Every structure is written in structure tokens, then in C-alpha cells.
């Protein structure tokens, strides 16, 4: 762990933006989006609030080609889009989401398109010094801390910046851009961690119950009446899925070109809140209602995948809660269902 002055921090970032195709949070009208940075002044550092879409779109584009098939011979060739880019100012929630994506995509049958493209993307993270907005629950689900998924990570500490490297690529970046820096003494390190912990204590803390029990509670209260309640108002519009940094479901489609020479197999973001997602031939739908879809989606985040990957699959950014027009959000879901469990509210199958 090293630290540099605030002035040097800005100089380093300026140089990184100059040397690389860099993307970061930029203000557009009233909200922030990830976009190309031309200079450091484009980037929002102090007053960051989560962008409309997470940086997921660079790792895992909204739509991408997977395979091209010759229409006549039916011979298939793979297609992988990749580009050398730097993501600057990625926040802990999104870094955790990237780390989760890395694990999911290399798990079992590795996804070549994601993994190949991932190699070409550099992630430079910024720590959060304050709660970004009222929708966030990162401190509750444990995603305010980062372990993997970044190359370099900057954290403000007494008007200076502490630097952590998270990969070999990060070390190379450190050597290239930072060189002279002050190595933190053990005492300074302890003090930094202490100060950071104090800082996090001032975050939202809107989730009222201990998060560690969540998956067993979700399992026991699978039929909690709250699902019916929010199922009734859910618009089934899919906004929550699209803005989620950890939702990775997709649908595949094929298109022929106009000369009838090539068939391209594409994949596009899809989500379990949408009608056709669990529909099979003959129009049988395995999850016909919003209630069932919400249950499924949140059990994936807080139960099934949490157990599998030993971390919350909701990274607490709050984008879904903000995007939802009927205000369905993870803070209320956690508080209500865990609350019902502790206060002994009966769930459907017990009645």
C-alpha cells in the first residue's frame, strides 16, 4: 500500500486519460452515465452517484455477435469483439459486480467472448468516501470492500490517496504512472483502515437486520406475503434487470444478412422479469406472474447464488430501486422479509 498527494493523483489520472481510451462516470443532463473521457474534468469524482447503466456494458455489451455461419455451407466461425480500454473511477459496488461476473463467466463452461474481452479491459477503482444516494445498501451487503475485480484502486485518506494494486496489470500501471510514492508504514495502514471503517459507519445503514442470515431466511420465507404485495404493483417492465450490474442473463437470436450469405448468432441482454423469459414452446410459462418472477430474481441475488459464490449477488448499488417506477427495492425487500421472519409473520404455506 502506497499513497500519493491529491495533486499527483489528479496528474496521474490526467496522464492515464491521455494515453488510453478511457471511460468513466460523466454527467449527462441530470444523471450520470459511463462515457468516453477526453479530459479529467469530464470525470465526476466528488459527487458521484451510480450511473444509469453500470460499467457492465463494456464487459458484456447489450448486444454482441457470437458466431457467424455461412448460409450455404453452414460452416460456423466464432466472433469476439474486443478493444483495449480503461475504466476509470469504478466504485466498490461495481468492482464487486465485475469480480462476480469474472467468476460466473469462467465457471463450468467458460464463456469465451466475455473472458477474451475482459483481458483487454483495465479497471481503475475509486473508493467511496460517503454514501452516494439513499438507494444504496453496499455497507449492508458487504460490497463496500473490494478484494478482486480491479487493477488499481484509489482511496482517499487525509486529503491524500492510498493506492492498492489488485493484479499484475495493476502493478505494471503502478510502475508506469506512479513511480515515486510513499509506502505506508504499519501504523499508517492501521490508521487508514480505522479511518475508513469510521467513514463507513456514517453510510446509509437502512437495512435493519444482519445480512449474514439472509439466505436461510429467504428460504424459510419463500412464500412471504410481501412477494404477493409487490407482485401486484410490479410493471414487469424489466428496468431492474437492465440496470443491474450483476444480472447476466441473455437471449440468443439469429439474423441473416441481406445477401443471404451469412447468418449471425447474437446475444442480447434478457431478464427473468420479462414475459418470454421462462416461456417454452406451446406458450407454457414457468413463471407467469410478477410475484413469481420477483421471488425468483431476489432469491437468485440473496439465496441461490449467494450460497454458490459466497457473496451477495446484489452489490447494493441501488440502481434498481432508483429505476423502479413503483419503488420496489432491495432495502424494503430485505427489511420486510427479514422483519416478517423475526416478528413471526406467517408465510403463505403456513396459513
Amino acid at each position, binding site marked *: 500500500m502506497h499513497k500519493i498527494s491529491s495533486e499527483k493523483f489528479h496528474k496521474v489520472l490526467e496522464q492515464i486519460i491521455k494515453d488510453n481510451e478511457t471511460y468513466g462516470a460523466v454527467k449527462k443532463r441530470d444523471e450520470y452515465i459511463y462515457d468516453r473521457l477526453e479530459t479529467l474534468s469530464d470525470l465526476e469524482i466528488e459527487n458521484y452517484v451510480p450511473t444509469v447503466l453500470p460499467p457492465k456494458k463494456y464487459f458484456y455489451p447489450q448486444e454482441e455477435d*457470437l*458466431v457467424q*455461419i455461412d*448460409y450455404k*455451407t*453452414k*460452416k*460456423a*466461425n*466464432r466472433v469476439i469483439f474486443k478493444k483495449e480500454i480503461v475504466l476509470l473511477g469504478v466504485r466498490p459496488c461495481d468492482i464487486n459486480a465485475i469480480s462476480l461476473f469474472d467468476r*460466473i*463467466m469462467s*465457471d*463450468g*463452461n*467458460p*464463456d*469465451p*467472448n466475455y*473472458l*477474451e474481452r475482459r483481458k483487454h479491459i483495465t479497471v481503475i477503482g475509486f473508493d467511496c468516501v460517503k454514501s452516494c444516494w439513499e438507494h444504496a445498501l453496499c455497507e449492508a451487503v458487504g460490497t463496500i470492500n473490494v478484494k478482486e475485480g480491479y487493477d488499481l484502486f484509489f482511496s482517499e485518506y487525509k486529503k491524500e490517496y492510498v493506492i492498492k494494486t489488485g493484479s499484475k496489470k495493476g502493478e505494471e500501471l503502478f510502475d508506469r504512472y506512479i513511480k515515486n510514492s510513499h509506502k505506508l508504514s504499519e501504523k499508517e495502514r492501521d490508521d487508514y483502515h480505522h479511518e475508513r471503517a469510521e467513514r463507513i459507519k456514517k453510510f446509509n445503514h437502512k437495512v435493519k437486520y444482519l445480512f449474514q442470515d439472509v439466505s436461510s431466511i429467504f428460504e424459510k420465507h*419463500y*412464500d412471504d406475503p410481501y412477494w404477493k404485495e409487490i407482485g401486484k404493483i410490479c410493471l414487469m417492465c424489466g428496468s431492474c434487470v437492465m440496470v443491474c450490474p450483476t444480472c*447476466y*442473463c*441473455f*437471449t*440468443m*437470436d*439469429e*439474423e*441473416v444478412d441481406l445477401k443471404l450469405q451469412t*447468418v449471425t*448468432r447474437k*446475444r442480447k441482454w*434478457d431478464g*427473468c422479469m420479462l414475459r418470454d*423469459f*421462462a*416461456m*417454452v*414452446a*406451446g*406458450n*407454457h410459462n*414457468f*413463471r*407467469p406472474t410478477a410475484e*413469481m418472477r420477483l421471488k*425468483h430474481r431476489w*432469491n*437468485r441475488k440473496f*439465496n*441461490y447464488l449467494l*450460497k*454458490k459464490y459466497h457473496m451477495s449477488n446484489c452489490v447494493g448499488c441501488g440502481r434498481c430501486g432508483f429505476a423502479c417506477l413503483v419503488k420496489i427495492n432491495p432495502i424494503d425487500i430485505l427489511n420486510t422479509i427479514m422483519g416478517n421472519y423475526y416478528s413471526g409473520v406467517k408465510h403463505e*404455506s403456513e396459513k
Partner: protein
Amino acid sequence: MKNIYKPLKSKIENIVHESPGIKSFVLKPDEEFRFDTGQFIELTLPGFGEAAFTPSSSPFEKKRFEVTIMKAGYVTSLFHDIKKGIPVGVRGPYGAGYPVKQFEGKDVLILGGGVGLAPLRSLLLTLVAQKQNYKRIILCYGAKTPSDIIYKDQFKDWEKKGVQILRSVDKPDTSWQETVGVVTVLLDKIKVDTSKAVVAVCGPPVMMKFGTFKLLEIGFKPQSIYLSMERNMSCGVGKCGHCAFGPYFVCKDGPVFTYDQIKDFPDVWL
């Protein structure tokens, strides 16, 4: 890295009309193609899309395989319109099939409804080929009407090979001599020592549900009931999320599950 989204070119060698709305397709892939009985494949009609099917042929045949397709949705309808000789794409095989090793020394009951007999036929052919390993093979099959029965001309052959066969239809015609009623009524007609038997079930969702209840009622243990819980498997490799079934992905953890694996899970029967 193996490209999991790239299909293998195959040719449609033959098409068999099984019943109104159901056809079987004999496919010859460009390369040798191995699968375990019960595993499924993704079949592509280039330019239109993919759909998941479980081969209905014997896994001991490595050069060709068959799929039986009911006209039900978009891709399946297109398959019903195509002709012999047309090249298609195949991905797979995916998922876990029937653990036939665990069936050894036991009575194997096969309970099928409608087009659900397709994956069971592959299982049946697997068992028949190693008949000495199993005590008895019993097939209970139900269809809506006699003309809806698939593999019509093959039952005789299976019977000759020692399979005990019981069939029923919901709506008989004048020539129908066998059982009338839903397929579960056949279960009253057989005698098995359920403690030394396994059963494989595949059919429409409603039949799977009541079939399982009936099997439990006559004494089958949840761990001896093997169910084909097919959903809309799309990527086939546990990535796209479409076939998520509670904590499982049908494409990776299934499509064959024991009832024991899923019985505590809510929303099993939908």
C-alpha cells in the same frame, strides 16, 4: 478455449411422421457425436434460432441420432416445414442424463405421456441393449388418441425384446383394444416391488405432477423417481439463465432430476 456457442454442422437424413403434429428427424453430424441417454442437445436452424431436444435414439449409435419434435412453438414449427437433406446445426450434448448404472439389478419402470416418450425411447433402447443388467423393463405410455401415439410400429419390436408394455389413450377409437384413461391408471395394473425399482417419467407438466403423486402413493421412494424437468434451455451451458429452476440450472444440473432433489423446492409443478 472451446467455443460453447458454435454449432456442429449436421444433415437431416430422414424425416418420419409419427403422429399429427409430431415428426422424428434422423440427423447425421459431420463428426462423430456421443451423448449419454437423457442428455439434451441444442438444434439450430441457421437464421432462425435454436431449440433444445433430447435425442430419442440409442446412444450406442455414434454416427447418427434422432430427435422427435412436436410442432408447438416457433423453431419446432419451422422444423416441421423443412425437407430431407437440409443442413442444420447441433450443439451439445449438455446436462446430466439418466444414471443407468444405478438402475442395474432393478425393475425399471418407464412412464411416458405424449411426445414425452421421446427421451424415454432413448433410455429404453439403452436398457434393452444391456437387458441382462436389469430385472424387468416396463413401459407405461399414454396418449390422447390412438393416432397421437408415437413410434407406433416399434412397440411390437420392444415387446419381442422383453419389454412389458401397457398403453392407454384418453379418447379411444373403435379399434382400440387397450386401456382407456389417463396414463396413471396403468400404474394400478402393474406389480412392482417399489423398494427394488426405479421409474423414469417424462410428459406434459400436468402428467408429470400427477404421475409423481401416484408413484409416491404406490410406494416409490422420492430418490427412485427420475423426472425430466425440461424448461427452455437456451445456451445449454448454465450461462443464459432461461432454464433456472430454483437454485438449479436445468441445462447443467438436469434435465433429469430425482424427485428427492427437487421435492422441497416450491413451484416444482408449474
